């Protein structure tokens, strides 16, 4: 079981992703702003983050500066585009284009892979 930090400026997305994460047996903290995310970062085993935050134009760079906690990008861009971006930031990516059922199927597996001992 891992503790997941979920960062998105949409309360709806946070609710949905938290449901997926806790349904997979993990605990979660949600953050709608970068300020809240930074405060919650130390306790997280993994971060799931959107790319567009009103108070942080480059969350991937900031997360990299904060530490080495694994990162999954969850954004509304095509998967291929996100995979390229993820590769340059040593992260993984899941596209919101997969829809809630697709994300519910894919995200737990990626989390499990990144948090395996």
């Amino acid at each position, binding site marked *: 079981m891992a503790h997941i930090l979920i960062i998105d400026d*949409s309360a709806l997305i946070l609710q949905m992703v938290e449901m997926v994460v806790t349904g997979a047996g993990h605990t979660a903290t949600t953050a709608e702003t970068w300020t809240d995310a930074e405060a919650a970062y130390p306790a997280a085993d993994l971060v799931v983050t959107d790319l567009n935050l009103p108070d942080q134009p480059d969350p991937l760079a900031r997360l990299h500066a904060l530490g080495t906690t694994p990162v999954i990008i969850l954004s509304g861009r095509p998967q291929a585009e996100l995979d390229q971006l993820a590769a340059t930031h040593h992260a993984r990516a899941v596209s919101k284009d997969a829809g809630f059922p697709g994300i519910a199927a894919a995200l737990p597996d990626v989390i499990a892979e990144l948090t395996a001992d």
Partner: protein
Amino acid sequence: MTTQNLRLEHLSARYRSLSAESDAVAQLAVGVNALLDELRAAPQSLAAHRQAAVADALSALLDALAAEPPALTVPQQFVEAFRAEARKRLAGLSLSLTGAFSSEPDSLEQSIQHLHAIRGGAAMLQLLQIADLAGVMEDVVLAGRRGALVWPVRPMLRGFAMLQAAIDDPESDDNALLRDVTDELHGHLAALTQPDFDDTPITNINLEPLQQRILVVDDVETIAHSVGLILSELDIPIDVAHDGAEALDLLRAQPYSLVLSDVAMPHLDGLDLTRAIRADDALSDLPVILLTALNRADERAAGLQAGANDYIVKGSIGGGELLSRVHELLKTAPVVPSTPDTRRFRRILVVEDIETIAASIAFVLSDGPYEIQLAHDGADALDTLRTTLFDLVITDLDMPNMNGIDLTAAIRANDALCDIPVVMLTARNTDEHRKRALDAGVSKFLVKGEVASGKLLDEVRNLLHSQD
């Protein structure tokens, strides 16, 4: 073999088939089969009624282990939450988009945020048309931020209108007009990849100003609005009727140059409206274009037989086709005589100290027949009101020099101005501010961010109508 033994044999075979599921299930299957073997070999070891109960329990456990997990569907609560969140985003977008077209940095960032959020939420809920439209609008703003294109303002405004309509009914997933504007915006982006990109507007019709007037007839307001937006390129007055009966009343009350009508409408459909126009000596020469969602040869034939000049499928009105066909018909259409009472626009004073917000409000109001003037604070507004006649004032609350409440009180205290309706449009959302404003004489108190552009226009229209 007894019935009970047959049942136990069958259970045993099913448990053996589950052994491959996982180690734990395999161990369970070994244990259960050992129990079943005992029961079959020594039925007297367990009373008969208990054997049946054990078999029932093992059968229920087997069903639970073998069941497929239910398909994960999106709970309806999330769709409702998306609609609520998207409406707030659209309210913000209605204010930021105007500033974005002027390439103001804050407005660009806010527009990107709003569209990205709508796109993401729609994608999660598999509302693919909404996601696609929000996504391409976001891409256009991103390209605009890079200075890579001439802003396709009207398609973006149509996109905004289509997003509003689709979010109000998100599970209606086949929307020809929405697909049309999405394709048009994709076309603008695709043009950016061409090395010889020409940044002249896509509609290259030579649009001379015409002294004419168009009537758009559609029972769906967002469609009428969208058609009106397309035709606003012609820079001539456009009126809207919501059914054929209302259209006929308008046509008999004042002159028009052309009618664009939906076909399927209540009270009087497009075909009967066309026939009524042709049967009336005063209207018989009026050009009529029928717009419909259906692309069927028999419908087209019926429309032309009723007397329509042209018949266009709604899915094909983007990209300049509707505009070019209307412009062609208007060349030989009746000219509307200009009379002061039909041409006078209502004059509205918008009082707002933040320029981008003032511009956004003016942009929203430009959809109506209004002349808009801006004042940057209460004192400036009062000076303007003393020299120029206005039909309505829209004012912010917090402003330097004179706030909106003091301005309202000054208007009410002036005999020449006291009857002008005053709308307060403010970010302050407390009962105390509302009471102070209403006590000062404000006619309507609206909160920014909670008022979508359509509602503001409705409030303005209703207040002006009550003054007639």
